[in-house]
């Protein structure tokens, strides 16, 4: 008997010891898991890609620049009273009152401000800060979110510190979820007992989980409701409480708590939730709004104010009542809060879609930072994209392709194969303001704006003229736009070979001015000019302007027989538009940490490619392309702004191009098939309509600007038929630009002669 007892005791002791060892080991494992998870950062914070902030200033037309559409996308709320809260605006007969939100910037965030915008016929004439009465010259609408890096997680989260959350909001959560949070050790026996009693007595079902338990459940466990999950949950909660302070746990909870669903995107944390439901930061929420968010915690989708406003009101009122009961709020505050209507912003505002651009940015960023950091560290990537220009670009490209297919049935047969790309650049800063790399990102992620290599055809010709004007400046007889060229059949002998450029339709004009040769895109005259100048200067000019590859030393280069991307073409034209200064195109402006600290800025990189005088000479000719040359279709389609541009078509119409610019915006459009099959259309037929529609809409509502000649040029009235100074009898004259000292002196002899 005694022996049996001894055996039993020994067994029990061994079992107890084994149990203690196992428990110790298990708790150690849990502890390690908790500490590792938190030290690594418990959440993946996807980096966010933003568009450029929109500038509001005098002479901007609000409707035409999509100001109100932008406000809607930014989830500003239109009110009928004087805006009193951030994110509200009121339309007036002659203006707008708006309470602008601030947004983060390195070291110095852009502050929120109340603004009164006065307009005449919809155009801004004056802006005033209505609190200080100060005149405001420029205001910024916060940048629109374009995409996140690592959206595969289907979670959005931005972290808030406990200090950023109003105490009243914290009180609401503690009152509703865990009143003894500051006094228990992770598990609340009283809460559990109360829940058991309530559940056994058939009362309202209650959960006994503390905030710490909820946190560890969300972070480490599955959502199943079973006793076997409750045990590790309790252990994890205690271990977490041992390791971290109450405030740290509460802060983590506020950032982790699940608060709803935006389509496939899970809303986690109170920052995301307050923006999702109210388009406000947590510290801007009213008491009623904070109570509503708190009430959502047990079942966010069941109580969603978007789908079930009445249920949402009930849970909100319940939270407010509890707060009044424990004395967190007064009866007066309770009464006021419950009388507030349930007002939320619409659940889903369609973002501007810029998939090719955001992928381009992601790749650029991946070259600077490890991809894992981009997916986890919550960087803020501020880009150069103009969200409204992007929206216009996507729409006109789709519409343009559909019109081509309707008008040309043969092309319509290969409906989905017809492709296009559009890229737009602000020439003075190199900022990429719009980018569409194809007709459907879903079907093809190949970004034709950047990755495609296509022959530019005649779009290349301005480079030949730039090289000619620039190089011949030191010649005894410099080439000017008025220089007469020979447009007749021509042979270029090189390396024991012969190249014979042909004009379109094999038509030749004989003697023709350099201006007219470019305006009408005459191959033979251009090739002769290239032969005079030499391929070396042409290649050097192309490289300086932005072509980023080895160029063949072949005569056909002068007519664009080289493969380039639309982005490179845009770079070249941006350099011309920018007075000969090349600026590297930029998509990424700066990168901020989640705390708003500047990690990296990307200021423009500039270089002088050609002289401003030469750039203007070609700009002036390219204006003629649009006024009376191959690009005159732009005027026929109603585009009236000062503009310059050039069509491009390659053999059999494989590639249709139009590249052009106003003083402030460059855009390049390419249309063709990926497989290089002939399209059979010219640049004027296929690309120019898309370009025109884009430029009309993207430039609308902004102050009109003109091309200004630099000081080293003079404008002289000449006879275009002779290239000489116009006489009184010349039937047609034009105003031509010349470098000072190169202008024609002799008058036109043909028309001034009596014989």
């Amino acid at each position: 008997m005694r022996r049996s007892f001894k055996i039993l005791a020994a067994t029990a002791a061994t079992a107890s010891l084994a149990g203690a060892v196992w428990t110790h080991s298990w708790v150690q494992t849990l502890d390690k898991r908790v500490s590792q998870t938190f030290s690594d950062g418990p959440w993946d914070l996807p980096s966010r890609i933003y568009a450029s902030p929109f500038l509001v200033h005098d002479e901007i037309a609000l409707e035409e620049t999509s100001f109100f559409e932008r406000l809607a996308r930014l989830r500003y709320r239109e009110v009928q009273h004087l805006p009193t809260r951030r994110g509200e605006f009121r339309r007036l007969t002659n203006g707008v009152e708006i309470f602008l939100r601030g947004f983060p910037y390195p070291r110095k965030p852009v502050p929120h401000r109340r603004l009164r915008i006065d307009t005449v016929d919809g155009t801004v004439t004056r802006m005033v800060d209505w609190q200080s009465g100060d005149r405001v010259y420029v205001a910024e609408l916060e940048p629109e979110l374009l995409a996140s890096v690592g959206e595969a997680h289907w979670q959005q989260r931005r972290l808030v510190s406990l200090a950023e959350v109003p105490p009243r909001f914290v009180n609401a959560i503690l009152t509703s979820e865990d009143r003894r949070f500051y006094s228990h050790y992770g598990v609340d026996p009283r809460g559990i007992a109360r829940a058991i009693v309530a559940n056994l007595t058939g009362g309202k079902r209650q959960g006994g989980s503390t905030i710490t338990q909820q946190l560890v459940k969300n972070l480490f466990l599955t959502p199943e409701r079973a006793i076997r999950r409750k045990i590790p949950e309790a252990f994890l909660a205690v271990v977490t409480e041992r390791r971290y302070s109450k405030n740290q746990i509460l802060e983590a909870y506020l950032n982790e708590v699940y608060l709803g669903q935006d389509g496939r995107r899970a809303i986690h944390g109170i920052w995301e939730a307050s923006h999702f439901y109210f388009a406000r930061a947590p510290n801007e929420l009213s008491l009623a709004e904070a109570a509503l968010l708190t009430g959502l915690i047990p079942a966010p989708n069941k109580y969603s104010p978007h789908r079930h406003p009445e249920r949402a009101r009930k849970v909100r009122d319940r939270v407010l009542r509890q707060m009044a009961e424990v004395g967190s709020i007064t009866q007066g505050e309770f009464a006021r809060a419950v009388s507030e209507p349930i007002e939320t912003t619409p659940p889903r505002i369609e973002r501007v879609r810029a998939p090719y651009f955001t992928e381009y940015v992601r790749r650029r960023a991946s070259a600077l930072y490890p991809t894992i950091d981009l997916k986890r560290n919550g960087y803020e990537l501020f880009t150069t994209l103009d969200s409204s220009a992007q929206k216009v670009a996507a729409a006109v490209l789709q519409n343009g392709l559909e019109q081509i297919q309707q008008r040309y049935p043969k092309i319509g047969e290969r409906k989905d194969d017809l492709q296009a790309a559009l890229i737009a650049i602000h020439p003075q800063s190199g900022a990429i303001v719009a980018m569409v790399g194809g007709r459907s990102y879903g079907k093809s992620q190949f970004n034709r704006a950047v990755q495609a290599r296509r022959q530019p055809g005649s779009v290349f010709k301005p480079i030949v003229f730039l090289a000619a004007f620039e190089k011949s400046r030191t010649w005894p007889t410099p080439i000017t736009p008025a220089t007469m060229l020979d447009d007749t059949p021509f042979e270029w002998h090189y390396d024991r070979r012969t190249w014979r450029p042909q004009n379109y339709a094999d038509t030749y004009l004989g003697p023709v001015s350099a201006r007219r040769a470019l305006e009408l895109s005459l191959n033979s005259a251009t090739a002769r000019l290239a032969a005079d100048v030499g391929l070396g200067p042409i290649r050097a000019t192309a490289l300086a302007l932005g072509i980023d590859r080895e160029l063949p030393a072949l005569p056909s280069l002068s007519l664009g027989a080289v493969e380039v991307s639309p982005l490179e073409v845009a770079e070249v034209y941006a350099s011309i538009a920018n007075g000969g200064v090349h600026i590297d195109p930029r998509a990424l402006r700066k990168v901020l940490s989640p705390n708003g600290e500047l990690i990296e800025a990307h200021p423009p990189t500039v270089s002088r490619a050609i002289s401003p005088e030469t750039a203007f000479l070609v700009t002036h000719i390219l204006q003629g392309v649009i006024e009376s040359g191959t690009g005159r279709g732009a005027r026929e389609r109603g585009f009236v702004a000062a503009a310059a541009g050039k069509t491009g078509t390659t053999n059999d119409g494989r590639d249709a191009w139009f590249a052009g610019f106003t003083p402030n915006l460059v855009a390049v459009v390419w249309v063709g098939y990926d497989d290089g099959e002939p399209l059979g259309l010219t640049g004027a037929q296929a690309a120019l309509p898309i370009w025109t529609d884009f430029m009309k809409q993207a430039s609308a509502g902004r102050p009109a600007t003109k091309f200004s000649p630099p000081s080293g040029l003079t404008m002289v009235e000449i006879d275009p038929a002779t290239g000489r100074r116009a006489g009184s009898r010349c039937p047609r004259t034009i105003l031509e630009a010349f470098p000072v000292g190169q202008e024609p002196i002799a008058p036109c002899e043909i028309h001034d002669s009596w014989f």
Partner: protein
Amino acid sequence: MALTASTAAFIVGCPEGRTRRPSLIAPPTPPPIARAPAPTISPRGVERPPSLVPPFAVASIAQGSSPTLVTAAQLSDQARRELEGGEAARAIEHLEQAIQVDANAPYPFYYLADVYLRRDRAGEALVFAKRAVELASRGGYPIEWIAHSHVVRGRALAQLGDRDEARQAFLLAIEVDPANLPARAAIQRLQEPRQNDARPNDAR
């Protein structure tokens, strides 16, 4: 140690002594960025001249100027203040905005030249400076502004080591505005090394 303590704490109850409080929200790892440190002395050995940033961009606006020019001047002036406060990145942002509002305003190009000079990117500074000179020379701007544009061009040339051209630019500034003291000081600085260079010859 922490593991043992926490395990023991669980077994015997939770004591109050909590020693380690690491943040739950781990700060993001700083990205590895390879950036060249900004040198304080020009690589070409030319002493970096003091920044000018004349504060009269706004004051120089003529009556009846276009609203976009006024806005560009305001933004440029804001950038000037930021430059003085050491916020170059923000200043560049505002200067770009100024150019976006009015690409023919000379002010932002002037200040961009100044920013790039501070960063020892003299080649690019020269591009902006030339643009500033060109735009300011188109008319309608006070002579002080035109002179300062020449001075910033001269500074860029000096930093690039082109002393003769730099001197010409400073002389031009004085010609445009005889009261331009920075140009005089810059010429003085340009001459000083030459005097030093001349000493060995004098000794011979």
